């Protein structure tokens, strides 16, 4: 039965998240934008202790937790709300949230129950722990994981990793600032293309694994984006995510690739939700600033009766709402354990477009006020763009949607 009722448990956490976003993020949002690579420890410590109180891994879904769930699962939906609200607060800081980032999502999507326990239980420890996922390499982004050049060679009870990863979100926090881990996508058989690609967990402090560069970015400046160099980096054999059997039999399956894709089914709506949080923040501030100038938005009128500003705002609200509902649907499908690849890519495409459009238009509409660093509109304009880039650019996600609706393989449409 179709329903748009927000689950009660989510409604409760919405109130808490909104308080955090308003009181712990917004007041320092500008500061951390202007002090790139400084770490918002107050927010991090607070999130860590509150998550610990709730059992740890606050941003992970039911699939990671051992506890048998009662009633229908809503954890993906809850995550969408969390991502939206905390990104409304400050998206860079949201990306600094400890306890289950993209690395956790990869472990969650591809790991065995033992691996999940081993790697995710860290979140319940004394100190906040971060994780990251490393897929992109300097020669290829969207073509991943098919063109992974980082190698993993088995040597007895260990794997030896070699290669360099770039654009790793929160990589420094995972490897340097905390005892976290990074999920490295590497090939066990360079001849096999994407069939040879597997995810490996590299924990902080592992010799041969180092952070080499911290990028200086257009936006999301409180979140570190780093390069990771792997030089004869030895990790335990069990750190290959998923069943190692496939490897020992030398069977060429696409399990590794499918693992990466399964990760994206969860993380793409998460990014979409985050984008929409920025978009909503922008729209709310825009309306507030307009109101201060004496401009009220009248709803319900035909376009012929509206001012240009009213039309702009109504269009923004329309695209924001429709994309948010599609994002919730993608997460609802995930909670229902139904295929959500197409919905995940769809909401990612549209959210990337919408947040870019809304933030760009808002800066334009507010003129010198929009362009001024006295206000956050220009910051959100910069923060917004990453959402059309990471977790698959708008173009790669269009390709995924197109292949699905046309029932084409990647050979038929690329």
């Amino acid at each position, binding site marked *: 039965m179709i329903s748009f009722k927000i689950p009660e448990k989510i409604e409760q956490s919405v109130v808490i998240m909104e308080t955090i976003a308003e009181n712990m993020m917004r007041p320092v949002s500008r500061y951390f934008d202007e002090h790139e690579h400084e770490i918002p420890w107050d927010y991090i410590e607070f999130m860590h202790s509150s998550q610990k109180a709730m059992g740890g891994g606050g941003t992970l879904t039911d699939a990671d937790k051992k506890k048998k769930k009662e009633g229908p699962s809503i954890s993906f939906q809850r995550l969408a709300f969390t991502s939206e609200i905390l990104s409304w607060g400050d998206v860079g800081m949201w990306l600094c949230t400890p306890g289950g980032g993209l690395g956790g999502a990869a472990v969650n999507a591809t790991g065995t129950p033992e691996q999940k326990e081993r790697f995710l239980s860290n979140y319940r420890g004394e100190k906040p722990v971060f994780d990251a996922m490393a897929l992109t390499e300097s020669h290829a982004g969207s073509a991943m994981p098919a063109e992974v050049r980082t190698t993993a060679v088995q040597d007895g009870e260990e794997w030896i990793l070699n290669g360099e990863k770039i654009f790793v979100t929160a990589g420094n926090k995972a490897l340097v600032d905390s005892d976290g881990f990074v999920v490295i996508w590497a090939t066990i058989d360079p001849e096999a293309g994407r069939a040879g690609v597997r995810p490996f967990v590299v924990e902080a402090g592992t010799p041969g694994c180092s952070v080499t560069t911290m990028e200086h970015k257009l936006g999301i400046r409180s979140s570190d984006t780093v390069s990771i160099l792997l030089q004869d980096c030895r990790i335990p054999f069990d750190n290959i995510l998923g069943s190692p059997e496939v490897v020992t039999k030398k069977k060429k399956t696409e399990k590794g690739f499918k693992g990466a894709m399964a990760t994206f089914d969860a993380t793409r709506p998460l990014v979409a939700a985050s984008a929409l949080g920025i978009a909503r923040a922008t729209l709310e501030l825009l309306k507030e600033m307009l109101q201060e100038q004496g401009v009220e938005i009248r709803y319900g009128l035909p376009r012929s009766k509206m001012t240009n500003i009213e039309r702009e705002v*109504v*269009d923004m609200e329309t695209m924001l709402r429709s994309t948010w509902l599609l994002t919730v649907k993608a997460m609802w499908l995930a909670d229902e354990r139904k295929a959500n690849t197409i919905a995940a890519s769809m909401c990612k495409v549209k959210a990337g477009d919408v947040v870019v459009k809304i933030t760009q238009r808002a800066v334009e509409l507010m003129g010198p006020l929009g362009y001024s660093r006295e206000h956050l509109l220009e910051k959100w304009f910069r923060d917004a763009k990453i959402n059309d880039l990471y977790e698959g650019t708008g173009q790669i996600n269009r390709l995924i949607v197109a292949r699905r*609706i046309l029932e084409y393989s990647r050979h038929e449409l690329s």
Partner: protein
Amino acid sequence: MYSFEPSEEQRMLIDAVERYAVNDLREAARDAEESGEIPPALIEKGWEMGVLQASVPEQYGGFGEHSAVTGVLAAEAMACGDLAIALAVMTPSTYVMPILYGGTEAQKEELIPPVIEAEWKPYVAAITEPQFDFHIGEMSTIAKKTKSGYSLNGEKAYVPFANQAESFLVFAALDGKTQAFIVLPDAEGLTVGEREKLLGIQALPTFSLTLEDVKVPTDARLGGDDGFDPASVIASAQFTISAMAIGLSKAALDYALPYAKEREVWGKPIAQRQSIAFMLAEMAIEIESNRLLAWEAAWMLDNDQDAAKAAYLALTGASDTAMSVTDRAVQVLGGHGYIREHPVELWMRNGRGISTFTGMAMV
């Protein structure tokens, strides 16, 4: 809890309406558009699917319970066949639903059963007015209180089947507030104009209507002496045409997509070119996302929430979706899309009208 899955019962209704839409309406659409006539049996077949009857409670002659969500699901499915014929089938809904939403108990008992219990008959609403900035909340047709009732003055457009209407529900401003009045076809001062010539939906016979000092009794006012709050009717008008716009858009995508897989250029299907594939992907994304706006607005109305803004956003989104998706469908077909052998040019013409069709169907 969220859910995006229609119930079993709704699923069965959608399937039945879709079969009718694709097998019957799609087949008849081109001839109906060119000739300006819809075979009466086709309207009757659609009427007998009972979409409206099922949303009217038993005491008023129906056999169901009102659900706007079920209504938008059915409206989308029907419009996927042909918008003009779907609007014809749903014409009585624009008369019945406002009565159901805003009528007095006596009006419901008296006025609804004759519509619902019989074969399809043209009970119609007169809402739209011939002005570029027509707004359903701000009518130019004026109702004035008289000693014995009300008098109506104004001009209406897009009144379907006005030349053979059983009864009219005329919307007019009373003290600046949109209200509705039952007007019988033989009322003095009521003139049905020429059949309108429109850009699209030409299968549907629509007329202008002129009201010159048309006198109606007190009890002709919807909701009695106190009138009615038009909010639900306006919301329903908006999300119903939104759902139909989504159905129309879906038809266009469903047509363009297999065409793109068959049509070859330089040795491979055009669908294997990103410029075409991305267009198709964007069409699908707009349909999927904007559909949910209509669902949400309908759900809010069903759950006694204020659906005004949601319905308005749904209309804004669906209207743009219908225009852009049908335009893209013509583009995918290239020159062939411009030829009337294919339906996409008709859908593109219909798509342009969505924002102005508000009030031509309700659920």
